[in-house]
């Protein structure tokens, strides 16, 4: 007779299903992105995915782990997609590959692979590359730059020189630089009036990419793949701190709306800070984690030296996640009055 423990009925779920749904949830954002900058982003996604799968396969091989089972779990692909979306769309291919390989080999596999990484691998890739290659990581295509797919490929593959038109800044970065250079004489409202850069409320085109992430994130919530805690706390904290400073001095601080829909705020709130492996797991812990991410992201993007703060915010909160979890264990059934 065989031995197999109960339960014999199982819900039809798997890690690869979870990861596939995360990828599906990214599609609206990616579609808006491709509409904004052209197919370059799709090329980057393919490059990152291939690099991630190859790096993962190599590391699995070295460790003697089953290749098919882990390559098909989809976690490496999710990491790759997040890296492609976080990096400048016309970044040279080797930069994306470097980031991806570092994420998979060091941030994920050296820590033990799936489920064992203390830090979000995609954000490690971003942090490593922005520290190592700050110039390349800050070059975003100028607004309205129209390049054919061939030209974009040539830029990415390095066959075409990186002209000035390729080295713009994100609206978020542009705002910060302008305010800094203006030394108090420049007014946020005045800057936002330039719709060529800032679009309707946060950044021409980029605001719609953020809306795409928001839509995908809400779908993830509706599918119960994420809980409300992290995105709500992330967005809430971002709104509270940006709102407070905006009310204090609307001329020098952009509105919460601007901050929500620029940079990686939406991507971070729904897709990065919600990573279960490196985040908090208890309900209260998730609230603290999300709020910490939102708060730190704002502080770094407004007062720090980097174009955006989401990556470092998430990594710092990853660092604190175990202790937050430890201190926020919920009371169990029947023990609530004691706790």
């Amino acid at each position, binding site marked *: 007779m*065989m031995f197999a423990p*109960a339960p014999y009925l*199982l*819900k039809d*779920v798997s890690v690869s299903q*979870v990861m596939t749904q995360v990828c599906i949830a990214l599609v609206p954002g990616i579609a808006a992105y491709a509409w904004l900058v052209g197919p370059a982003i799709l090329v980057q996604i393919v490059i990152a995915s291939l690099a991630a799968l190859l790096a993962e396969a190599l590391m699995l091989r070295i460790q003697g782990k089953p290749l098919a089972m882990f390559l098909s779990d989809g976690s490496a692909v999710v990491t790759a997609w997040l890296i492609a979306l976080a990096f400048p769309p016309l970044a040279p291919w080797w930069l994306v590959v470097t980031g991806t390989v570092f994420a998979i080999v060091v941030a994920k596999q050296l820590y033990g692979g799936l489920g064992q990484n203390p830090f979000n691998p995609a954000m490690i890739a971003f942090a490593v590359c922005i520290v190592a290659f700050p110039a390349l990581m800050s070059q975003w295509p100028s607004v309205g730059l129209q390049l054919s797919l061939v030209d974009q490929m040539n830029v990415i593959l390095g066959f075409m020189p990186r002209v000035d038109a390729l080295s713009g800044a994100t609206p978020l970065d542009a705002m910060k630089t302008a305010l800094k250079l203006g030394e108090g004489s420049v007014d946020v409202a005045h800057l936002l009036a330039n719709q060529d850069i800032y679009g309707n409320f946060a950044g021409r085109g980029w605001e719609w990419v953020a809306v795409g992430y928001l839509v995908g994130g809400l779908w993830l919530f509706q599918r119960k793949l994420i*809980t409300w805690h992290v995105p709500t706390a992330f967005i809430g904290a971002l709104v509270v701190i940006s709102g407070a400073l905006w009310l204090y001095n609307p001329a020098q601080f952009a509105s919460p709306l601007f901050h929500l829909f620029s940079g990686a705020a939406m991507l971070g709130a729904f897709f990065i800070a919600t990573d279960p492996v490196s985040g908090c797991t208890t309900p209260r812990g998730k609230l603290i984690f999300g709020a910490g991410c939102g708060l730190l992201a704002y502080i770094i993007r407004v007062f720090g030296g980097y174009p955006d703060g989401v990556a470092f915010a998430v990594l710092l909160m990853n660092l604190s996640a175990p202790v937050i979890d430890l201190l926020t264990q*919920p009371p169990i*059934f029947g023990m609530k009055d004691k706790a």
Partner: protein
Amino acid sequence: MLMNLFKFKGGVKPPTNKTQSVTLPIAQAPLPSRLVVPLHQSIGGVPQPVVQAGDKVLKGQLIGEADGWISAAVHAPTSGTVLEVAMHVQPHPSGLDAMCVVIEPDGKDEWIAHQPFDYANAAPEAVREYLQQSGVVGLGGAVFPTHGKLTPSKTVPMEELVINGAECEPFITCDDLLMRERAEEVVRGIGIFRDLLQPKKVLIGIEDNKPEAAAAMRAAVDALGEAFLVVPVPTLYPAGGAKQLIRVLTGKEVPASKRSTDLGVQCFNVATAYTAWRAIAHGEPVVSRLVTLSGNVHAPRNYEVLIGTPMGELLQLAQPHPDTDGIVMGGPMMGFLVPDAKVPVVKATNCLIAHSDRIFPPKAPEMPCIRCGACAQACPHELQPFEMYWFSRAKNFGKTQEYHIFDCIECGCCSFVCPSRIPLVQYFRFAKSEIWAREREKKAADTAKERFEFKQLREEREKAEKAEKLAKAAAAQAAKKAAEAAAAAAAESTAPAAAAAPAGEAAPSTDAAPAVAVDAAQEAKKAAIAAAMARAKAQREAAQPKNTEVLSSAAQHDVADIEARRAAAHLTDPEPGTPPAPASEKAE
């Protein structure tokens, strides 16, 4: 009859698979060729057999006597001959054997003389004892002796009596059919529990996917003029767990560390109430129960089955499909594959599911935990299963207890939802049994240590006492000698001097006598200690077994020969030329 219901957190909604086995009424399973009745069919003491091979027994005759208060009697399920009282494989995942009474039915199914219990004139204590003698145990699956739950707490007033007709596990429908067909007897049984416990309210919880059962129960309650409330509860596994049902109906949460009576609640299964009524009203002990046959079978149905019926034989009634590869006892969430088709139906057997890969597809390989928290959201006890898993896996059992592993009811919700297909419950069972084993070991070691220390203490004391006794004797002797010497000395001195000598002059000699005595006493003590040590050494040596002692004389001879050869070859003796010593001395 609207009632404010409460919710428990977590829970899952597996496909219920109940409709297939409720289309036909309950049928009587035919007499099997042989009945194997385990003696240990309830929590608590193992009943002692009161029959032996060759005895003729009648249906309902006592075959196993309850051992202690938490234990329940076992009876012959039919009339026939006892073939043997022997060890047989049990319906338990371990596949271990336990003592069973094997009965060959004579086909007459002849009852022993039995009559209704005089319930109206019986003291509560007598009712409880009668239920114990009738083998009434919890038929929901836990098989806790029912009489042991029928004493109200002395300090906490009994507020609610919860009757469990939820039956939340997929496939199982025996309680559903029981309530549909025998509601009146169930309600009468509940009446007995009510009389004994005197609760303020009686709440009968039935999952809302069993409207027929609820209607039948409501009708029976009305017909009997009882004030019991029949409450439909939302269908959500494990709503039929006692603690979950208590929560849903009363809002009270019973932690692992407490009894429900501490919170003024008690809970019984509907089938238990039914058997209690059969025992009281008809004098029938528990010799059969309802069993759902379902799963990979052609004709799923509920049967009234004699305890002891071999499962494989019983399942044939439902005509299992040819690809059936095992029998699951219980539901698909908490049941287990029985180790052998021969194992008997016991009081805990509510359902047999024919297992096949078609209805229960093999699990995908286990993946690493991604901490998604689905298990924590599904856990009805609000535990953090992924944390307990982590520490169970690391064998960090202290940590698992910090995460309340003993509050886990092993309902399987966590395993059900896990995207990594981790058999979480299995890890928790492992951790729990390891913790129990360690505690047992520690207890045994503590007892042994205590015993050893006490023995040492006693030996020391005895030694000291003996030495003291010897010393006293020696001192007495020495004193006597000294006194004699003094007397002699006194006799030697001149008579006038002796006569004139003041009493004070005798002082030196009286001083000398004790000094001599002390010396002697010390000497005696030393001698005594030395003797005691020598004795102890001899005893120790005598007590130490030598591996050559228990050998036959021939073997001893062989050993001596070998030792002699070794000595001759200078293998054992450092000093060349010494003659070979006898084997027994060599062993030193």
